[in-house]
């Protein structure tokens, strides 16, 4: 029992002791993450230094490098594991703890158990305490216990190097354990103090309702209490390290950016005191905002600013309360104002009533005087009224009042009338009538209206009156007076009579007019006929009575093709009250004839919404027929104009010289190439633009003649739009109009280009005929001359010979005979040339083709020319080229004629030098005859005509060189016949070369 109770007591004592000890011991894991990280970094660095330290120590102790490195490398895995950032705090701190204690063990091992090395354990333990965590601490303690308590006891040599330790390992273990314990207690105490201090501060910070946020110099959040977290809606972790300025709500239009920059924080610190509270708006996590007051205080560490503390106070509710208060205040103010206004209004109304009452009293006094005034005013009105007013008493109907108008109408004064009755004043008939009406009014007790009554007045004769009689009741309800109001309607009556007269006259006019007068009225689309003149029957065969009954009796006769237009035009006139003018046809029901009619009216509207058509219906059949005839005639005229190809114009010319085109026929467009508009718009376009400049003078003369009234005709040229020239004949006939004030020119413009061209062709032909006739005459003269000259020589010498017969002189006779023969030959040549020319012209010359040798050709020609050349002292040279074939084909006689002509020509025009004849082949298909001389040469302008018949270079040569002038012409024509070509090369003073190039004719093809 005792033991039990003692055990129990002991147990409870132990339990309470443990509880107390637990209360004394620190809790652990109290470091915030950032502090823990900072410390861990330092301790880890220390571990890495130990890796190096162990290696160095090993070398120092004389160990080999490999062994030292191996020893140092033992720590490396632990250091790496401790540096693993993702690892748990507990794991990483345990690793450093293990590493550092192991380092202590390695030092002991390497030193061979130096006692001093054991101090390293105690120091490391103090370092591990910095984690303020039980796990690494207990790992270290456990390690030391194992090292000293287990390993040291079992194998002291491995742990100590002291002989006493080898002998008493337990003693040494206890001593070392005591040191460990002491070091642990000291470390735990400082840990515990540190922890409790931090707990207190945290408690304070966590329990304050104001948000506290610490920022560094970059404005980044380094601390935040739960109140601040709650205010912003973020977790503390979420905001750590973020910029506080990110939470600041930048209101639009403001520039303040607190917490933003280092400068801002710096500036804050320069204010040496705590800042006064500033209001600001901040973001909540849910993107709403809240208003807060904040105070910034710099954090100084050793006098240097390292950051700032910002203390927030959520003032949203306060601001809301203030706003509510402000609103309540405003409402109160409004209510006060309203009340004040009410009071003022009531006050004003009171003042107004007072004034009104005063005014009413004044008015009352004024009205009494006014009443008097108005009574006299009323009397004066009654007196001055143009209407006759009178009153009678109801007993004997004696007059009691008689106004001035009554005096005027009746011609009697009021004094004269008052007190008398009608019998005293008017004839018995009239008075009886008046009195009867008086009685009637009294009996009826109401107004009696007498539209017309006559009275005889002494000075105005008979007057017509419109009278109303009204009984005026007395206070007893019985008639007291009879009031009479009479209006003089005499003038109106006379006017009405005049109107009736005028209407009668009007009807007389209406019935005698050449049209039918009518009045139709449209009421809401229903037509009534007020009046239609009786002529409607005469003109349209419709009974006026039928029309009066129903307008449809007229409209039903309108031609079916026109009824639509009729209805439309009437509707339009009614709607717009515009002038109505309609032309259409209707069928005369009496005669069955088609009648053209015209309806005219200017509709008027009445206040009753009626449209009244007053107007006239006209029979326009004759006019229409005339118009149709005119149109037809005009159409015919236009057809006539368009069917003739000439252009017709009608121009008006005033005495002032103004001209206008009245008509221009459409043919002007094809004639001139310009659109017709140009001529219609501008009369001057024709004379100014179209007439050929060379013909303008003549055209001006014609225009002047026309302006004088003379008809005129002129042929001239016009220039078309396309630039072509057209010959025209413009004939104008003039008529005077408007008493000679205007000239009307009727003009016809015909295109005579064709005729003009024919004329020109004829003229040219005539000129050509004349020229050819002249040439023929010249030719005849020339031929005659050329024939007569040798003939004269023959005749002359023959006569001389005859004279010589008697006295014979053989030499002279022979010479004369030779002269005769020469001349005869010459004559024969000329005749032959003429015949050849004639045959060539007639196309009757035939070539006689056969083969010959080139030599025969040249020799034959030269034989005939040698004498002539010799006589002129010229050398005649011939040359046949080697390439020329031995046989050529052609008409040799004609070829010789060509050669002779060319050679004789050359000799004729050469005075000194030579004439060369050459035969050669320019190519394999052609052969050529060439005659060159050293003569005077032929001017280049003559080259073109030298081959024409009867032409020589100029007239002067005719005589120097006799001949027909046919030689070269014949050469040319013969060459052409032979399909050859003649080329002339010549210049003045350099001689001439004629080359005839002929096609080579194959010898085998020639049929001989």
């Amino acid at each position, binding site marked *: 029992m005792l033991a039990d109770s003692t055990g129990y007591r002991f147990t409870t004592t132990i339990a309470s002791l443990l509880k107390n000890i637990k209360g004394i011991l620190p809790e652990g894991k109290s470091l915030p993450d950032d502090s823990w990280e900072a410390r861990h970094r330092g301790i880890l660095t220390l571990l890495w230094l130990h890796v190096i330290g162990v290696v160095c120590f090993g070398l120092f102790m004389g160990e080999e490098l490999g062994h030292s490195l191996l020893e140092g490398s033992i720590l490396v895995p632990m250091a790496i594991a401790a540096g693993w950032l993702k690892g748990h705090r507990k794991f990483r701190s345990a690793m450093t703890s293990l590493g550092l204690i192991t380092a202590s063990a390695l030092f002991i091992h390497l030193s061979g158990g130096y006692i001093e090395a054991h101090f390293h354990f105690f120091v490391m333990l103090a370092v591990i305490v910095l984690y303020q965590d039980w796990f690494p601490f207990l790992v270290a303690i456990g390690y030391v216990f194992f090292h000293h308590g287990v390993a040291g006891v079992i194998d002291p040599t491995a742990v100590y190097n002291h002989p006493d330790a080898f002998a008493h390992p337990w003693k040494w273990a206890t001593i070392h354990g005591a040191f460990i314990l002491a070091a642990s207690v000291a470390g735990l105490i400082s840990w515990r103090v540190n922890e409790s201090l931090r707990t207190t501060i945290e408690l304070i910070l966590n329990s304050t309702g104001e948000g506290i946020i610490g920022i560094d110099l970059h404005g980044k959040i380094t601390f935040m209490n739960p109140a601040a977290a709650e205010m912003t809606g973020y977790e503390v972790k979420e905001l750590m390290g973020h910029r506080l300025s990110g939470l600041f709500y930048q209101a639009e239009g403001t520039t303040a950016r607190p917490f933003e920059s280092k400068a801002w924080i710096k500036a804050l610190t320069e204010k040496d005191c705590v800042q006064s509270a500033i209001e600001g708006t901040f973001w909540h996590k849910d993107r709403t905002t809240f208003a807060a007051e904040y105070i910034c205080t710099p954090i100084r560490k050793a006098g240097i600013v390292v950051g700032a503390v910002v203390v927030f106070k959520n003032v949203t509710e306060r601001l809301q309360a203030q706003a509510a208060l402000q609103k309540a205040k405003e409402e109160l103010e409004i209510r006060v104002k309203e009340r004040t206004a009410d009071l003022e209004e009531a006050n004003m109304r009171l003042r107004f009533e007072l004034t009104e009452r005063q005014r009413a009293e004044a008015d009352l006094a004024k009205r009494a005087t006014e009443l008097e005034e108005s009574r006299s005013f009323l009397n004066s009105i009654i007196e001055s009224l143009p209407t006759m007013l009178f009153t009678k008493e109801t007993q004997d109907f004696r007059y009691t009042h008689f106004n001035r108008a009554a005096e005027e109408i009746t011609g009697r004064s009021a004094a004269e009338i008052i007190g008398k009755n009608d019998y005293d004043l008017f004839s018995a008939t009239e008075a009886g009538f008046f009195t009867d009406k008086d009685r009637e009014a009294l009996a009826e007790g109401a107004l009696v209206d007498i539209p017309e009554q006559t009275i005889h007045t002494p000075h105005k004769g008979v007057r017509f009156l419109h009278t109303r009689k009204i009984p005026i009741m007395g206070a007893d309800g019985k008639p007291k007076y009879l009031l009479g109001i009479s209006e003089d309607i005499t003038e109106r009556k006379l006017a009405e009579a005049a109107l009736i007269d005028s209407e009668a006259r009007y009807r007389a006019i209406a019935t005698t007019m050449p049209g039918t007068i009518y009045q139709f009225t449209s009421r809401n689309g229903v037509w009534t006929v007020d009046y239609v003149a009786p002529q409607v029957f005469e003109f349209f065969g419709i009974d006026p009575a039928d029309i009066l009954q129903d307008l449809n009796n007229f409209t039903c006769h309108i031609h079916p093709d026109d009824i639509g237009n009729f209805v439309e035009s009437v509707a339009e006139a009614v709607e717009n009250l515009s002038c109505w003018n309609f032309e259409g046809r209707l069928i005369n029901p009496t005669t069955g004839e088609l009648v053209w009619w015209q309806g005219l009216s200017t509709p008027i509207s009445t206040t009753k919404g009626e449209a009244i058509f007053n107007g006239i219906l006209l029979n326009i059949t004759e006019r229409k027929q005339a118009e149709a005839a005119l149109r037809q005639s005009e159409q015919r005229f236009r057809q006539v104009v368009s069917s003739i190809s000439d252009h017709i114009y009608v121009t008006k010319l005033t005495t002032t010289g103004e001209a206008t085109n009245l008509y221009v026929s459409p043919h002007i467009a094809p004639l001139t190439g310009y659109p017709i508009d140009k001529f219609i718009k501008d009369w001057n376009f024709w004379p100014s633009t179209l007439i050929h400049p060379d013909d303008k003078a003549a055209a001006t003369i014609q225009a002047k003649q026309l302006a004088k009234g003379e008809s005129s005709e002129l042929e001239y040229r016009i220039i078309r739009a396309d630039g072509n020239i057209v010959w025209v004949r413009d004939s104008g006939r003039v008529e005077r109009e408007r008493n000679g004030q205007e000239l009307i020119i009727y003009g016809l413009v015909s295109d005579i280009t064709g005729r003009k061209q024919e004329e020109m062709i004829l003229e040219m032909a005539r000129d050509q005929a004349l020229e050819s006739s002249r040439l023929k005459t010249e030719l005849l003269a020339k031929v005659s*001359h050329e024939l007569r000259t040798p003939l*004269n020589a023959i*005749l002359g010498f023959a006569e001389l010979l005859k004279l010589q017969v008697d006295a014979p002189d053989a030499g002279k006779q022979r010479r004369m005979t030779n002269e005769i023969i020469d001349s005869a030959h010459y004559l024969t040549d000329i005749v032959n040339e003429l015949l050849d020319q004639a045959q060539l012209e007639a196309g009757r010359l035939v070539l006689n083709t056969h083969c010959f040798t080139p030599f025969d050709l040249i020799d034959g020609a030269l034989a005939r020319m040698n004498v002539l050349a010799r006589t002129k002292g010229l050398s005649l040279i011939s040359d046949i080229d080697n390439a020329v074939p031995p046989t050529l084909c052609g008409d040799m006689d004609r070829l010789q004629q060509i050669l002779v002509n060319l050679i004789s020509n050359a000799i004729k025009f050469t005075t000194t030098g030579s004439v060369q004849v050459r035969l050669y082949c320019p190519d394999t298909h052609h052969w050529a005859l060439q005659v060159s001389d050293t003569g005077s040469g032929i001017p280049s302008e003559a080259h073109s005509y030298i081959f024409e018949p009867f032409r020589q270079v100029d007239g002067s040569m005719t*005589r120097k060189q006799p001949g027909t002038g046919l030689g070269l012409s014949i050469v040319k024509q013969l060459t052409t016949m032979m399909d050859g070509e003649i080329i002339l090369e010549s210049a003045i003073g350099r001689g001439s070369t004629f080359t005839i190039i002929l096609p080579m004719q194959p010898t085998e093809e020639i049929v001989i």
Partner: protein
Amino acid sequence: MNNPLALIIEDDSKLAYLFAEALQMAEFETETIQNGRSALERLALMMPAVVVLDLHLPDLPGSDILTYIRSEKRLNNTRVMLVTADALKAEQLRNEVDLVLLKPVSLIQLSTLASRLRPLTMT
């Protein structure tokens, strides 16, 4: 050499020769010239009794020579015989010359006619 002088202006040498023969038969002293320009030069120096003139000359028309003769007072007594083949021209000039002969001309005829034109004083 008392015979009167006849100037023969003719470009055809044969005819010039024949005309000279004919004039000599009519007892004239003769001189033949074959172009117009030489003829004018010659006429400036002499006063022929008769000029036998051809109209178609190589350098200038015979009519020019006729005009010269008729304009020159010195040559008032010179008789002009027109001997030409150009009937048309000859007809035009008929009134300005003393005699017109159309080629071909007979020598005898020419000689006879020329003798009639001999100056009277000389006979």
